[in-house]
């Protein structure tokens, strides 16, 4: 099994102080697979995906990304981060740089790409997220939805194999959620391996190959969207779904 997996978490444990935030988490993700992770807040879903690019350090178990095991080895961490793109809830654009500079910065300085080539790449990425006209603005001048699309473009510019999304639409006004989700659907249809933490169940139904439900640091249920939404096994999942779909 693990030969096909591009991401593999085995018995991962992590504590914040005394709080056991990840408890024996096991997850295998195949190439081009789209995983949607959901669960109540504090269930460890953000922490889990942040462990995959080592923004958080796991304390027990093993995480292997694209054949590279995440350990204290800094070289490995750098290599994994080059493979894995991440989009945050709060966008985290660099406010002192223009949109175009936000996107070209990492290709120029990390990948040593010539400036002209990087700018061309940035414009291509902005076309993909449908806001090429904003290239010379600063993040503070954009709406939340536009900022989040720039953040996606910034990640894609590093040409990652895997994209992690940490509640990408939770900080957005309702009318902007769709423009971001549309970009993500395009990305999924393009064959990107994605792990998405989100409560957008409509998105999950259309895009996900597999649903992962977490609660209290454990993966409670893993199932296809069809089974997950129509016939969930655990009571905890049923309760969560009834709450979230009633909104």
């Amino acid at each position, binding site marked *: 099994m693990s030969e096909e997996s591009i991401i593999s978490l085995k018995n991962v444990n992590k504590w914040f102080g005394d709080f056991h935030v990840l408890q024996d988490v096991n997850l295998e993700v195949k190439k081009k697979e789209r995983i949607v992770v959901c669960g109540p807040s504090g269930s460890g879903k953000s922490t889990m995906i942040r462990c995959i690019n080592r923004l958080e350090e796991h304390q027990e178990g093993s995480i292997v990304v694209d054949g590279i095991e995440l350990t204290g080895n800094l070289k490995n961490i750098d290599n994994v981060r080059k493979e894995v793109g991440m989009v945050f809830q709060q966008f985290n654009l660099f406010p002192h740089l223009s949109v175009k500079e936000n996107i070209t910065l990492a290709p120029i300085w990390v990948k040593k790409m010539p400036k002209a080539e990087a700018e061309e790449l940035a414009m291509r990425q902005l076309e993909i997220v449908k806001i090429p006209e904003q290239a010379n603005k600063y993040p*503070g001048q954009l709406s939340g939805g536009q900022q989040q699309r720039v953040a996606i473009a910034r990640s894609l510019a590093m040409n990652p194999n895997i994209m992690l999304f940490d509640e990408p639409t939770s900080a957005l006004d309702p009318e902007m959620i769709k423009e971001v989700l549309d970009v993500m659907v395009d990305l999924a249809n393009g064959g990107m391996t994605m792990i998405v933490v989100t409560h957008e169940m409509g998105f999950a139904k259309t895009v996900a190959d597999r649903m992962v439900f977490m609660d209290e640091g454990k993966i409670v249920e893993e199932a296809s969207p069809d089974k997950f939404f129509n016939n969930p096994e655990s009571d905890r999942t049923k309760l969560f779904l009834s709450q979230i779909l009633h909104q």
Partner: protein
Amino acid sequence: MNEMNAVRKPPVATTGIIGWLRINLFFNWTNSLITLFVVYCLYQFIPWILDWTIFSADFKYNYLGEQITNQEMCSRNLDPENGGACWAVIYVRFYQFIYGFYPKVEVWRVNLAYIMLAFALLPLLYAKLPYRKYFLYFTYIFPVIAYFLLNGGLGFTEVSTNKWGGLLVTLVLGCTGIALAFPIGIMLALGRRSKLPVISMMCTLFIEFIRGVPLITLLFFGMVMLPLFLPEGIDMDGLVRVLVAVTLFQSAYMAEVIRGGLQAIPPGQYEAAKSLGMSYWRMNLLIILPQAIRISIPPIVNTSIGLFKDTTLVIIVGILDLLGIGRGTLADTNWLGLSYEIYFFVSLVFFIFTFGMSRYSLYLEKKLKTGINMGAD
């Protein structure tokens, strides 16, 4: 309705001078009373100060038309009823105020250094300067040029630093202190926040020790103790020893100011930079420091102004800066009793420099804020 809204202009904030006066100076009777009182005070003070500093003052000649060469010839000493400030002392001692005891034959070197300093500052002050890149190259090599120009070497006659004085010393100490303390301060601030305990502890110890000691103590330390640390036979120049002390002092303060800026950067900025594969140094140089320094501009300028004024303390260890030359002049029997004029002049020179720095920081804040919303949400 929409059309009407589109053409409607905002209400006019003030209605001319009368309106402004009404709102700001005569809003109610207490306000009016305070305004009248302040106007009365200004009416009393301004004519007097103008008369003393300009209209009744001696510049080169006294009221009898003689050229003033000592304090007894000042109009206000000849006839207390008929005279203001006696600026002749500044005129006569101007050379010392600006150059100290620098040999007159070589003084063109100091003048050239002053002019070059202005050119070196230009690209730092104006980001839109044409050919800024080439000016910046000049800025980087300026310290080396200035060293050989002022100190000698490379064919120039050597001028020992104990002949330097006045504004020259003030500027050398101020500029070098500020320019060196800035990068050292950044390194100390990063070091103090480092996750490596040894580095963090060393930086914290250094900062706390230097900050906990008065500058005067550090100056004495530089004068007396620094030579003990050097191998025998190597003699460290007096001015350099003071410079080391001043720079260490300033870098500790600068470090704390920049650390304040670093703490204001949201953790998301670090995470975004890391997730793009940036190393520690790239992340700090490209993402974190540009934002942190931008936030810290007011306190950075504040401590820099503080240092510029604190350089006057070098008088304690026998170096004659601008204030030192002033006090030396006062001790001269020819110019006894002219303390008003001398302190006024020294204050004015300091004020011109510090006020310039303060205005510049305001300009910089305004410029850097345009179009950038620092809170990224």
